[in-house]
Structures are given as structure tokens and as C-alpha cells.
């Protein structure tokens, strides 16, 4: 496949210069590299500017509710494990509204990928703080500046044992593509947090700022303690590491643990209905 094979002939409603454009481009390149057919691919999203991404990519898409993309995504995969399921979300959608689902889907380890557009601000609702906004960030709502600790998705994911945890920077399309290729081909749950500047509502964390505050790490991602250490970097000073932070292979996925798929990969909707089995169940309710 070529990246253009995923093109949609629609107007894109992101601000000119938005970091989302490069995420879209990197994703198309990754999908083309992996040769994933549009009709076998499902993009699932919630609400926000990131949530619109599936509109701009030729594939199946389920754009649901704010913060609720993961429950839908895990169920789509559990209904038909033959589909490639990618969940696209923003930092508010995934870490704010959807935080509980993130925690529990890491526990489930479904074979899906979550891509979070992290711009440290709420863009769709015009400029409030997000769970990842940096301390001191002033908005019309956070008038004294943010004083809460930013949410650290990578540390949470590593601590919970997510099987693939990575961070990318949308200013670097090639490397973002590489990370996405690894994430999508990973067997198990993959979380990719992508730094993505909001050119309209975040004048602090700009392309330049992210360039200055990140670096590519080359540590051994299989080392969980080291991964945890890496995931803590950048908070309260220093630079944020980019690349694969943590990866563990060979863990059973959610779908593999479901009894219906033991020895039979047929999607649920293709399974036939057996009235005789049901008759036996009813007969088992005869007491004597």
C-alpha cells in the first residue's frame, strides 16, 4: 500500500500548522509500510481535535463519545480479532475523561494501539488546561496558572505493565512513523504518546520548545525499572525521552484469554446459532 491509498477527499478542519497533520501523515506511512487494507482497519476515537483524525483517513471508523474510545475499541477487537484496531485520542480525551478506561485496558492487554495526541492543552474547547499541561501554564480558566502535577502517562503505563509504551514527537514524521509501525505490529496493548504542538492555544509548548525539551533514548526497553526511570524524565526539568520506553513480548492478549477464541478465530458474528444446545440448557433446569 502507499500512504496516498488512505487519502480521503475531504476538507481538513484543523488549524493551519497544527501538529496533527504530521501525525496523520506518519500514520498513513506506517499503515502503508504494514500493508493494512482500509477495509480491515478500524480507527476508533473520542472527542477533540485528535478525535477527528479518523475522518481524514480511508478506513472503517467509529467516532464515539468523549473519553470512551477505548471501551469501544477493545470490544471491536474482541468481536473480530482479525481487524486491526487503532484508537486515536487527545490528552484530554484519553487521560482526563477516559483515564479509568486507560488503566483497565492496560490490565486487559487487548491487541490494539492507542495513539494520544499530546499538546498539553484543550484545543477543541478553546484553550483550557489538559491533564498534561505543565505547571504555571496560564489559560482563561486556570487564571493563576496550572498548579496540579501533570499526568504522566508513560510512568502510569509502565507501572501497570502495559506491554508497549512509547513517546514520539510529531515534528519528526519519519521517527514517528517508525514508532507507529512498531506499536501497530506489537502483539498486545500499545500506548504511543505523541507530543504535538497546538499552534493556536498553546504558545508555550511550541515546535521549538518540544525540540529543545526532548531527546531520543536508546536504552533497553525490556528493562522495566529502567523504563520507569526513563518515563519520569522531563518532569520538573530536563528533557523528555522519545522512542520506545518499555516493551515486553509474549504476554497473552485479552482476546487470547477469551474462551470463545480458544482454538477458533472466527469472529463472533459469524458463529452459528445452535437451538439444540439451548434446549439442553433449558432441560437442565428440570429439578427432578
Amino acid at each position, binding site marked *: 500500500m502507499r500512504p496516498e491509498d488512505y487519502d*480521503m477527499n*475531504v476538507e481538513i*478542519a484543523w488549524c493551519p500548522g497544527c501538529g496533527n497533520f504530521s501525525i496523520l501523515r506518519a500514520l498513513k506511512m506506517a499503515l502503508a509500510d504494514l500493508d493494512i487494507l*482500509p*477495509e*480491515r482497519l*478500524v480507527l*476508533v476515537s473520542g*472527542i477533540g481535535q485528535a478525535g*477527528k483524525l*479518523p*475522518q481524514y483517513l*480511508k*478506513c*472503517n*471508523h*467509529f*467516532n*464515539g*463519545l468523549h473519553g*470512551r474510545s*477505548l*471501551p*469501544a*475499541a*477493545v*470490544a*471491536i477487537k*474482541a*468481536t*473480530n480479532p*482479525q*481487524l486491526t484496531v487503532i484508537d486515536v485520542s487527545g490528552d484530554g480525551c484519553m487521560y482526563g475523561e477516559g483515564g*479509568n*478506561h486507560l*488503566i*483497565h485496558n492496560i490490565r486487559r492487554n487487548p491487541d490494539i494501539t492507542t495513539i494520544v495526541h499530546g499538546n498539553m492543552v484543550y484545543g477543541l474547547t478553546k484553550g483550557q488546561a489538559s491533564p498534561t499541561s505543565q505547571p504555571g501554564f496560564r489559560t482563561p480558566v486556570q487564571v493563576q496558572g496550572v498548579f496540579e502535577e501533570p499526568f504522566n502517562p508513560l510512568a502510569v503505563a509502565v507501572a501497570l505493565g502495559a506491554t508497549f509504551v512509547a513517546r514520539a514527537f510529531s515534528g519528526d514524521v519519519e521517527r514517528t512513523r517508525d514508532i507507529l509501525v512498531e506499536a501497530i505490529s506489537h502483539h498486545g496493548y500499545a500506548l504511543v504518546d505523541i507530543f504535538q504542538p497546538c499552534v493556536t492555544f498553546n504558545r508555550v509548548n511550541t515546535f521549538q520548545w518540544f525540540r529543545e525539551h526532548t531527546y531520543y533514548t536508546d536504552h533497553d526497553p525490556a528493562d522495566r525499572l529502567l523504563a520507569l526511570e526513563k518515563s519520569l524524565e522531563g518532569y520538573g526539568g530536563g528533557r523528555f525521552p522519545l522512542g520506545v520506553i518499555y516493551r515486553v513480548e509474549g504476554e497473552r492478549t485479552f482476546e487470547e484469554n*477469551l*474462551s*470463545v477464541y480458544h482454538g477458533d478465530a472466527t*469472529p*463472533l*458474528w*459469524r*458463529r452459528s*446459532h*445452535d*437451538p439444540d*444446545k*439451548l*434446549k439442553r*440448557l*433449558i*432441560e437442565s*433446569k*428440570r*429439578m*427432578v
Partner: protein
Amino acid sequence: MSRVRGGENSTLIRVSSTPVRAFIERVDVLFALSPGAVEHMDGRVKDTLVIADEEFHEEGAISLPIMGEAEKLGGRIFANVVAAGAAANLFGVREETFDEAVRSLFERKGPDIVEADLRAGRKGYELGDELREHLEISIEPQPSVREHVVLNGTEAVGIGCIAGGCRFMSSYPMTPSTPLQVFISENAAEFDMVFEQAEDEIAAINMCLGASYAGARSLVATSGSGFALMEEAVGLAGMIETPVVIYIGQRPGPAVGLPTRTAQEDLNLALYAGPGEFPRAILAPGKLEDAPEIAAHAFNLADRYQIPVFLLSDQYLADLYYDLPSPQIGEEPSYHITRTWEGYRRFEFTADGISPRGIPGYGSGTVRVDSDEHDEEGLITEDLDVRRRMVEKRNLRLEMLKDDTLKPEVYGDNSSALICWGSTYWLVREAIESSGADVSMVHFSQVYPLPHDTLELLESFDRTAVVENNYRGQFADLLKLEGFEADERFRRYDGMPFSVEGVAGFIEEVLL
């Protein structure tokens, strides 16, 4: 009681030569296994033969050494089986039949437990001989019931869900919907279903929508408070025209209310749940005999019209057990899934508002659904003309749905009628039968949308009253919206079901 162990609990068993299926206040024989038992029965012990454990000296009661015998057999845990043995003997159940019942009940707990319970049951049976010296109960055995199965309301619904092709269930535990979650989960491996306990109610219903989008018939079960959390996703189901079956085991609210009691208070919640306007159907089985068929129908209806369909049950129906002939399971579920093609449009405008429903991975097209207003392809639009047509398309299906309803059941041929819905079926019917009054019953197992001829039917009675387990008279209000105002409303909202005596008293005082 909403506690795990301890406290006072009672089980009401009715024994008769003819079928009895409803709750009555009257207690003829009470086996009191704790000192607080009589008091717990709250005034229902009148002219009652009390059989009490000899450890506590209940005045006027027949004393039996139930606890003492249970302890000799290994612990107080056997007291229930000892008492059951005594009761079985008293009611003329043959000892072999009773043994068989004990075996089938404890089989899955292993041979040691079965043996111990059989011993306890036999001991109880012996004690029953003593009881027979005090009183004689003569119940004519009905051999035909050997052919019957014994179900509770939850199992009856659960069987219907499987019959309706349910393939996916995710839920968060909440009384009294949890038993349905247990039922589906126990049968998931055998019937190719996925059951997942979600992290919360919001996840549960969003998972169901994801599963349904991908082609699996899906079910979510909860109670009022839990459902309140799901409302946003009900709107999503409406917007993306994705079928889902929502089982609400009602209990008294608001908020967490009385967790282990019963009510019919969530009709309005189901009726109005979700932002915006879109069609839905609300079914409320009244009896175990037709609950399987109604539950199966819910899945077919959801699939055919691509809408959320509610199954309203309640604690009373969910936990009620009785024997009945094996439910007949209807034909194969009818599926409405289309293979997609290049250029397939999920929300294509059609004459009846129903677009061919494709699912991802089946065919060469792509299936795009969006919670924002969208065009035929599922792409976000702000075109106001498309918006208007989409609203019409979504709501058009309600008109078709009105022609595809479950008709109310009319019992009797009188000029006055008791109108009821859901779990009150047998309560009302037995009250009418036992009072001998010239009153009919009109029972609705589909409460929304109502059949076209509802108004005509109800207006054919001179005098009517609506019986329901809530304070407002929610169904009576719904009928009023349809243009019918009943003369009376008989309501109970203390957390208990109606009793046969209560409804009979209402008939005599008000309706006659």
C-alpha cells in the same frame, strides 16, 4: 438486606395443586430459624402455624430441634436443609423425590457436600413425621409438573437472550441485574459469547456499542443508578444507529435507594434517556412463560431497526422462581447485516429510514459511524439540509416500530379493567381470580411505543385503574400522553411488590 451475611431473611414458598405464581401476604406455615424471624415477617404472621427451633421458645409454636440436629450433622449451615426436609414431608413430598432435589441442587459442590446435605435432608424428613402429628396438609400431587422446568425471571430472560443470538455482554455488577451477568457469563463458553466485566457502567455500554458495530449482538445489564451513567451512550446508539439491548433490573431509587427491594420506577428513565431525539423500544416481560420470547424479540427488534431496545425487569421478577412447561424457543434469529461494497454508505437515505447495515471486515467497503452529525457516508457535516434529513431518517423508524409491537394481553371480558405492565402480571391476575370480581386485566409487555389501537382498547372499558410499583404512576402518565386517562391509579412504592391481597382489596374498595 444489603449485607452479605447475617440479618433476617425470609423465603416465601407457595404450595398448591393448581399453579400459583404470585406474592401473597398470608403465611400459613412459618419455619422460624432465628429468634427474630417472626418479628421480621412484619405483621404477616396471623393464624399462622409457627414451627420454631427449640432453642428459642416462641409462644404457641411447635418446637423442632432444627439447629441441634444441624449441629450434630456438622454445623448450623445445614439448618436450612433440615427445615426443608421437614417441610417436604409435611407437604407430602416423597422422600426419594426430595433426595433427588437435594442431589441436583448440591451436585456441583462435590460428593462430600451432597452426602452431608442428603443426611441433613433425611433428618429433617424424620422431624416432619413429628409435625404431621400436629397437622395434616393435603395437597393433591400433579404428576404433569414432572415435565416442568423450574426457572427464575433472570434465567427466563437469559435463555431468551441466548435464543436471540446474544454474542457479547459487558456489564458492571449491580443488584438485581447481577444474576443475568452471572447467567450469561456461566454460559458464555458453551454459546460462543464474550462476557466482560467492565470497569464501570460507561465502559460497559460503550463496549456493547463497539461490539455491535463490529457485528455482535450485544447486551448490557444494570439497574437504575447504573443506567443513569449510561445515558450518554444511549444517545450514541441513537446517533450511530447501532443496535443494543439494555436490561434494567429495576429497584427503588432515587440514587442507590433500596438495593435489594423492588420497584417499577425507571420507566421514565428508559423512555427519556439520552440527548436528542431518536427511536427506541421498551419491553417489560410480565411472566416467566413469555420472558424468553420477549428477550429474544428484543435482539431481533434492535437489529431490524438499528436502535436501543430496553428490557425492563425488576427485583421481584428477576428473583421469582416457579415451575413452567419448557419455554419454546422460536425460530432462528433474523440477522440484518449486509456485505459492503466499494462506495458503501452506512447512513444511506432510504424510504423507510433503515440503511443497509454493514460491519467492518465484511465486504470491500468501509463502515464509518460518527457521534457528530454526519452525512450518508458517516462523515461530519454541518450542512443543515443533511442534518434535517438525518433527523427525519432516524425518527422515521419510530413510525414503523409502532406497527411492529407486542400486543397487550387482555384477560377477562368485563367492563372494568386493571391495567398493568411488567412484573405485576400474575399479581393482578391472581387478585382478580381470587376476588371473583368482574374485572378484566390488560397487561402490557411492550410499554413503548404502544400499539396503534391502545387508545381504542382502553376506551372500551367503563372503568379503569393502572396498577404499578411507583409513586407517580409513570405508565399511567405515558397512557395520558397517548390520550388515555385512567380513572384510578393504584400504586405501591415502599420497596415491596404488590400482594395478591393488596390488589384484591383495591378492586373491592375502589373498582367495584
